[in-house]
């Protein structure tokens, strides 16, 4: 009897110790604390340390801590990272701390969310803590997407310009020359893309386009396809942030009709690639792909033979019935960092944000995960951005980057837009298809 009790007690102790052990191990962050000489700046990230991007943040934090920057009262600033593993988990953590006042000094924030956070004073302006030189170093799209009511609320060390990847070699084989390919001054419209696919198909060549409509869920859809609306002169909301009358306006519907045209003809022409191969473009399964910068890095590392066979042209523009083309607008934007209202030292936190998104961090990100740097000086680098697809994308970012809409109801808007695009994908060409009606319903759902 005694022996049994002892065994049970022992088992209970082991269980309790295991639970404590798991609890101790499950914290995904540093354990740094403030002291008389050290000011710890806590950062919440949307990534896991197991991911390449997460590992880069760790390297950046180590670099920052080695620099031993100081607060205004002379304490050493140390950066402490907490990996929340996903954007949803980060959102939940932020939401959970809004009432309790337990936000960290810095949070990662996706560019379209900056407006909502700034409007609710969850994040603080950075202007007074950063010099003009620091701010002027960033490309305009970063400053534009991070500015609310004339104040700068966040900074980003990476950007993701997007465009139309095209297989130069294939297109040249059916008569195209370098002069024919789309440029910022003389872009291709969606009709030009359709024409090229027809020519390739007629010549029995690879002709399909990978549209990546499922990339990144609703947010990915907004990121890649917001230029459809902008290029046609449309808007997502009016000046009062109302979607009805803007999202379903004639211009916006005109922009969407470009995608509609591709899908309507797809059943007969089989233009669209629906497979799952993420490397279908460098793998030779498709002739075109609408995507961000990440493929450049993949091709550079894994498809060296393909390096000189492709390039990137601007996101296809709108073309009206009379042949008038819209202006080039390029997908862009990425995650950045902002100082929260609960920070215990806004100056120290701002210095940390500047470092997390500075030239060294930006270059590291580019080298390891292929996102584009956000500093003009880095984009001027001839070695990295002087030729080929990288040059094309950097020009697109600098000259035509079109940040996503910045409104408080952005989550509703991005879902509505994604629903509209997916409606085109699944219903275009069917008997009960009515884009104008559906777009109006979705616009109403945003304004409700």
């Amino acid at each position, binding site marked *: 009897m005694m022996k049994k009790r002892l065994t049970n007690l022992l088992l209970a102790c082991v269980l309790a110790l295991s639970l404590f052990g798991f609890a101790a191990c499950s914290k995904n962050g540093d354990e740094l604390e403030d002291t008389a000489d050290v000011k710890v700046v806590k950062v919440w990230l949307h990534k896991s340390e197991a991911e390449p991007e997460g590992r880069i943040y760790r390297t950046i934090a180590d670099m920052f801590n080695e620099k031993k920057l100081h607060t205004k009262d002379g304490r050493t600033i140390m950066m402490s990272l907490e990996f929340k593993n996903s954007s949803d988990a980060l959102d939940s953590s932020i939401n959970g701390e809004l009432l309790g006042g337990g936000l960290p000094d810095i949070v990662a924030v996706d560019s379209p969310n900056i407006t909502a956070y700034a409007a609710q004073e969850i994040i603080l302006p950075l202007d007074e803590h950063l010099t003009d030189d620091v701010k002027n170093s960033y490309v305009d799209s970063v400053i534009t997407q991070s500015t609310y009511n004339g104040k700068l609320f966040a900074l980003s060390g990476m950007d993701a310009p997007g465009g139309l990847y095209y297989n130069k070699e294939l297109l040249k084989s059916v008569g195209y020359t370098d002069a024919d390919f789309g440029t910022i001054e003389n872009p291709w419209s969606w009709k030009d893309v359709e024409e090229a696919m027809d020519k390739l198909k007629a010549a029995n060549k690879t002709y399909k386009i990978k549209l990546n409509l499922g990339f990144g869920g*609703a947010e990915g859809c907004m990121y890649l396809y917001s230029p459809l609306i902008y290029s046609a002169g449309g808007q997502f909301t009016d000046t009062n942030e109302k979607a009805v009358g803007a999202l379903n306006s004639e211009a916006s519907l005109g922009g969407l009709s470009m995608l509609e045209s591709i899908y309507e003809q797809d059943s007969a022409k089989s233009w669209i690639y629906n497979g799952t191969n993420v490397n279908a473009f460098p793998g030779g399964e498709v002739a075109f792909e609408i995507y961000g910068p990440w493929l450049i890095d993949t091709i550079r590392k894994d498809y060296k033979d393909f390096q000189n066979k492709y390039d990137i042209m601007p996101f296809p523009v709108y073309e009206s019935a009379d042949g008038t083309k819209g202006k080039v607008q390029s997908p862009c934007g990425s995650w950045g960092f902002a100082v929260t209202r609960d920070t215990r030292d806004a100056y120290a936190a701002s210095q940390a944000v500047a470092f997390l998104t500075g030239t060294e961090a930006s270059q590291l990100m580019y080298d390891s995960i292929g996102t584009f740097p956000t500093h003009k000086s880095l984009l001027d680098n001839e070695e990295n951005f002087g030729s080929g697809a990288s040059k094309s994308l950097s020009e697109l970012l600098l000259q035509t980057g079109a940040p996503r809409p910045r409104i408080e109801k952005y*989550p509703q808007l991005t879902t509505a837009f994604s629903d509209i695009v997916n409606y085109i994908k699944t219903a275009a060409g069917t008997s009960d298809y009515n884009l104008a009606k559906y777009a109006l319903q979705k616009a109403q759902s945003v304004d409700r």
Partner: protein
Amino acid sequence: MEKAKKTKSIYYKFLGKTYIKSDSVVGAVFILPAVVLGAIFVIAPMVVSLSYAFTDANLLKLNEVGWAGLRQFKKAFTDRFMWNAFKNTMIFVVKVVPLQLLAALGLALILNTKIRGNTFFRWAFFCPVMLSLAVTSFLWMNLLNPEEGLINALLKVFHIPPQPFLESPKQAMNVIVVISAWQGAGYQMLIFLSGLKNIPPELYEAAGVDGAGSGTKFFRITLPSILPTFSFVLVTMLIGAFRLMTQPMIMTQGGPTDSTMTMSYYIYQQGIKYRDVGYSSAIALLYTLFMSTVALTLRKVTDQKD
């Protein structure tokens, strides 16, 4: 006298019944963790949610919550997207409950016989239950890929044209129904199986002597004997079906064309993604009332049959 005094100190009366004090203390200590955890994680959130339903609470502005009265409820009744989500959920429930119920009962009946490999089949049928919903959702997404999925490759062998499955507004919900039934049936199968094992074999033997066939035995002995189990499975399955969210969230994000948007997903979307906690709570409250009514009614009907 001393003994009577001692007895009085050991026992106490509560609501007309007599209890032993020490037993009650031990009992209270045992249920205390459950009561505390339940109060923190179940009762408190319900109370908070209930109170938010009458406000304009926004997740980003929880320190500026204003009284909204019944405004959120009125908004819900005129929200066509909510009604669409409700309709989709009902379609799902009506399709999945009979399918899953029959599948679970059928599998249980098969495993209740002395077939070879009984243990293996029991494990195999229960396997999907052990897998995470997220994992199986991703697995099915790959299988159902219109261009490269295994299912379309199999259909091609039988000269059936490739199907869009999750990309078709007409097929997506049906696909989710089948996947959900496949994933959930194993659990209910085990419950049915335990019910079937409790039926005394003598009943079947006696019925056999009286000349009853398989059908008669099933409808006259098996079904009435497992009716309490049947009732339990039906109610829990129904509540589970009403709460469908993971599969559409992962596989279709409520699309295509809102065809797989369910009530639970809609409530989540409004509250978490759009941060409109007040509205989300109002819909949740209405939906909870609806579900409770259905479940209680069903319980009452099946109890009467018991």
